[in-house]
């Protein structure tokens, strides 16, 4: 779908979400960010139980409500109306982030503007532009056990987003475990190790990735 100067192929947004969903395990408690990460919920493998956390105070996010059943008291962190499930539980914001900060959430999937080769992430502010705030992103990247970033491989102007060092203000330092782009997947086993290129979208070559990535990684 996406065309990166000459590469005809690449994963769609939905395929990127499906790839992130491969990291789910049965029994996981997961927090999904806004945008592509939200689509991960559609790809939970059959028979696997995954419980979604919403940082505004809920475990067990259900699907969007049926028309006419929207409840103003039941929203997700993106302020969208949602529904509850039989095993849902509500709690306050302090408890919600105690859960996140304390390492009780297994996995979070979120978007980013830049990722550095040492796992830094920038996704909350662009100097000179209106700052909206970091919301819960800094808490999530600091506290959740495994951090997966899903983003386009290059910015709209074609410049790489997986780079040696972030140029934008950080959301978290040395926190990212896996980067899934429309072209490739990079992962590292721990926060002292470099990222390794572990997968490429069909038709994408290692040279294509190298040409569009300034971060150092193991291939």
């Amino acid at each position, binding site marked *: 779908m996406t065309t990166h100067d000459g590469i005809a192929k690449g994963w769609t947004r939905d395929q990127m979400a499906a790839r992130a969903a491969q990291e789910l395990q049965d029994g996981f408690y997961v927090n999904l960010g806004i945008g592509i990460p939200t689509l991960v919920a559609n790809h939970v493998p059959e028979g696997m139980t995954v419980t979604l956390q919403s940082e505004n105070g809920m475990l067990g996010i259900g699907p969007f409500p049926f028309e*006419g059943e929207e409840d*103003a*008291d039941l929203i997700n962190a993106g302020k969208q109306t*949602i529904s509850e499930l039989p095993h849902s539980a509500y709690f306050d914001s302090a408890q919600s*982030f105690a859960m996140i*900060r304390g390492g009780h959430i297994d996995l979070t999937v979120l978007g980013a503007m830049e990722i550095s080769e040492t796992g830094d992430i920038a996704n909350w502010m662009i100097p000179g532009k209106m700052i909206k705030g*970091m*919301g819960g992103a800094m808490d999530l990247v600091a506290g959740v056990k495994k951090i997966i970033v899903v983003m386009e491989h290059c910015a709209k102007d074609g410049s790489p987003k997986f780079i040696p060092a972030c140029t934008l203000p950080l959301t978290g*330092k040395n926190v990212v475990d896996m980067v899934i782009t429309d072209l490739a997947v990079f992962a590292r086993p721990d926060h002292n190790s470099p990222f390794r290129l572990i997968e490429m979208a069909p038709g994408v070559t290692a040279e294509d990735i190298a040409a569009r990535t300034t971060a150092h990684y193991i291939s």
Partner: protein
Amino acid sequence: MSKKLYPNATAALDGLLKNDILIASGGFGLCGLPERLLDAVRESGVTGLTFVSNNAGIDNEGIGKLLRTKQVRKMISSYVGENKEFERQYLAGELEVEFCPQGTLAERMRAGGAGIPGFYTKTGVGTLVAEGKEVKNFDDQDYILERGIVADLALVKAWKADETGNVVFRKTARNFNVPAATCGKVCVVEVEEIVPAGSLDPDSIHLPGVYVQRMIVGAPYDKKIEFRTTRSREAA
């Protein structure tokens, strides 16, 4: 009847509002927002307020209304999107903003209410949020010192309260209302319904009466939804 119950929001805030005070407000977006109390703050005309609140309302809702009337000097928030007047005042330097990660903000309120003046967290280490803050290493990892917040006044929206001030919230409208309530030197709660003592399950009180000094019934509420997302019945 309840000694804590006041006839309306203006009466419940009588004597509590002054210029330049720090107010903690519950709510996440428009969900669980103490709208009657915020309206009464606006009508009181007090200025120079600092609000500690996860969001800053939207253009004509919540704290957004107080921004229009220029009663707010400073916001301590995690996210302030969706608010043009906020943006204008902020860019014009008329409004001071302290951005605080959402979890740190909730914990700072909880800490202030729990007699904890400071705590260490990993959140924000190595970012702009850490600037000017003490860094301490525990077990080979760096953490920053964040301060507890004690507010002059807490404004809270709840679902039901009994006559003695035991409070319950409904679904995700609980959010920042509990930490805000506990960090206020005085806490005023607006509820949808007051029920007799004994009506609420004592095992299921979200905010015990000790935290609640004054209450009003704010009903009827016309609760607003920021982003209405649905699925169609056919798809099910």
